[in-house]
């Protein structure tokens, strides 16, 4: 393939501008959607991982079976289980969390909010390990009873008025004094949180023995997975059932990644269909162009073009459609990803971290080139096989 033949192919493309752009558009859309999907889901995965690392990688959680992440059901764990976990060696502390949906009142407004509670004695360590930082006021302290710490935007988001330290809120008609406000994190879940002392809260909801989650911190340098297994087997024996899960952040990340991977696979599969349609568009355009240039093919053959020369010209032409479509689509898809990031930020999901994936753009461009070449093969073969005399006679 010499550059004269390349120029010939390029010349043909620029000769029919509108049709060339429409043909390329099919590839642009296909590649752009794939690139955008990959870029956004990569950003999502990074965001999830970062979130879970904040949750403390060395914390093992015991949760009722079928309950992962935000607990909503009435607990099936009890303080007996806490006692069992405490028997496992190698733990720095074992914290009980009790979580319940409660009616919360502030600024004459009422909302049903998840109230989380824990032992104030463990608040210092647990908040540190869970990356909860106080912006104003203080954390829970031993001896606290009817006090609460609230997320940074809870008031603004749900009660149309900021909640400040020394304000009072009502949970299930009981007055709680706000002693601290968390730093804003960017996620609605943590920014709209309410933390209260566990005993007070248990009494409030009349569940004196209830435990929603047991969180155990593994001592530094020890194998988190090994301890997780120990906790699991001890609990199995003590409870004589398996309707609970002992999980680590690593496992959760793994599972979420798996789910995300499946979703990604399906979405990219759908986007790939549009790329196939784009390829068919190239094929269609190439068949038309072979037909239109039948006479040119005859001329080229009469002046010494071999079948392979003709094949190359048409395959290359189809490849250019793919190459240009892939490059424009790759850049466009990245731009769309940043747009999605912007929209996500508007909707309070500021964690989505999008970055330009140069490798992906290069890969997408080459892939689109290959799609173009493959789509061009059959039409190019038809062109190459034309008999010179027949082609010359074609009007």
């Amino acid at each position, binding site marked *: 393939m*010499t*550059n*004269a*033949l390349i*120029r*010939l192919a390029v*010349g*043909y493309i620029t*000769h029919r501008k509108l049709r060339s752009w429409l043909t390329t558009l099919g590839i642009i859309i296909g590649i752009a959607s794939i690139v955008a999907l990959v870029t956004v889901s990569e950003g999502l995965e990074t965001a999830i991982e970062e979130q879970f690392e904040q949750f403390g990688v060395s914390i093992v959680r015991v949760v009722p079976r079928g309950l992962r992440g935000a607990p909503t059901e009435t607990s099936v764990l009890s303080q007996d289980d806490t006692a069992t976990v405490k028997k496992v060696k190698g733990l720095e502390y074992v914290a009980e969390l009790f979580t319940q949906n409660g009616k919360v009142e502030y600024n004459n407004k009422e909302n049903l909010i998840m109230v989380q509670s824990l032992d104030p004695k463990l608040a210092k360590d647990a908040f540190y390990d869970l990356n909860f930082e106080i912006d104003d006021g203080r954390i829970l302290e031993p001896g606290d009873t009817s006090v609460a710490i609230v997320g940074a935007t809870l008031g603004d988001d749900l009660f149309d008025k900021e909640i400040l330290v020394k304000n009072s809120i009502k949970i299930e008609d009981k007055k709680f004094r706000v002693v601290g406000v968390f730093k804003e994190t960017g996620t609605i879940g943590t920014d709209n949180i309410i933390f209260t002392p566990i005993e007070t809260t248990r009494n409030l909801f009349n569940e004196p023995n209830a435990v929603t989650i047991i969180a155990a911190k593994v001592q530094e340098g020890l194998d988190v997975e090994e301890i997780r297994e120990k906790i699991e087997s001890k609990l199995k024996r003590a409870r004589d059932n398996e309707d609970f899960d002992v999980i680590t952040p690593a496992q959760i990340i793994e599972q979420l990644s798996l789910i995300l991977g499946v979703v990604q696979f399906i979405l990219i599969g759908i986007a790939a269909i549009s790329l196939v349609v784009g390829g068919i568009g190239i094929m269609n355009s190439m068949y038309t162009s072979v037909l239109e240039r039948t*006479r*040119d093919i*005859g*001329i*080229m*053959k*009469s*002046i*010494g*073009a*071999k*079948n*392979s*020369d003709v094949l190359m010209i048409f395959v290359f032409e189809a490849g250019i459609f793919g190459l240009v479509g892939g490059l424009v689509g790759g850049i466009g898809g990245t731009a769309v990803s940043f747009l999605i990031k912007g929209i996500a930020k508007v909707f309070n999901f500021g964690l989505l971290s999008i970055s330009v994936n140069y490798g992906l753009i290069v890969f997408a461009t080459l892939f689109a080139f290959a799609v173009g070449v493959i789509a061009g093969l059959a039409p190019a073969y038809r062109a190459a096989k034309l*008999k*010179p*005399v027949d082609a*010359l006679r074609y009007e």
Partner: protein
Amino acid sequence: MEKVIELKQVWKIYKIEEVTYPALRGATLDVFKGEFLAIMGPSGSGKSTILNSVGALDVPTKGEILLDGKNIAHLAESELAQIRGRKIGFIFQAFNLISSLNALENVILPMTFQGIQADERIARAKKLLELVGLEHRMKNLPSQLSGGEKQRVAIARSLSNNPEVILADEPTGNLDSKTGKEILELLRKLQKSENKTLVMVTHDNKIAKQADRTAYLSDGKVIRITKN
């Protein structure tokens, strides 16, 4: 005299759907090196078919075509392409230039297919266009050229790979008589100066008279050859 082309009992039978149509029925003809041979005959007598067979554009159904002593009647397409590119220069009635390439690029194209170096291609194409008097039209597209100019580009193109034989199929058929005469003069001049064999299909007696010999075709056979 040395023979460049020999046709021995060449048959060409076209099959269009179920109807077979013999365009050549045992045509026999010798072409000598350096001569100007005109081929005449009524339409449908097989003039173009004979030219296409000699030019390796079409393969005969039966018979032998010797080009420089080598039988080209049953070669593979890739070999035929080589012969068309190196040994034959075609000139058509309808000019047959590539419309998206300018005059210079059209002349360069046959050399591209032969893998000649870029700078050499360009230099030779420019020289040939000067030879046909188109040095001022090199960058023009065929659509910007007159009929006579287009045929001059085609003549330059036919000479680009320095072939032995120029095959011209009614080269003046689409031109007015004055331009046609100029083109014919140019072809005659180049044929002599470049020492080429020229085979030209025509139905114009005046043109045929300028040829060294004229072969008359009828019903797919050469019925008579006259010397002028």
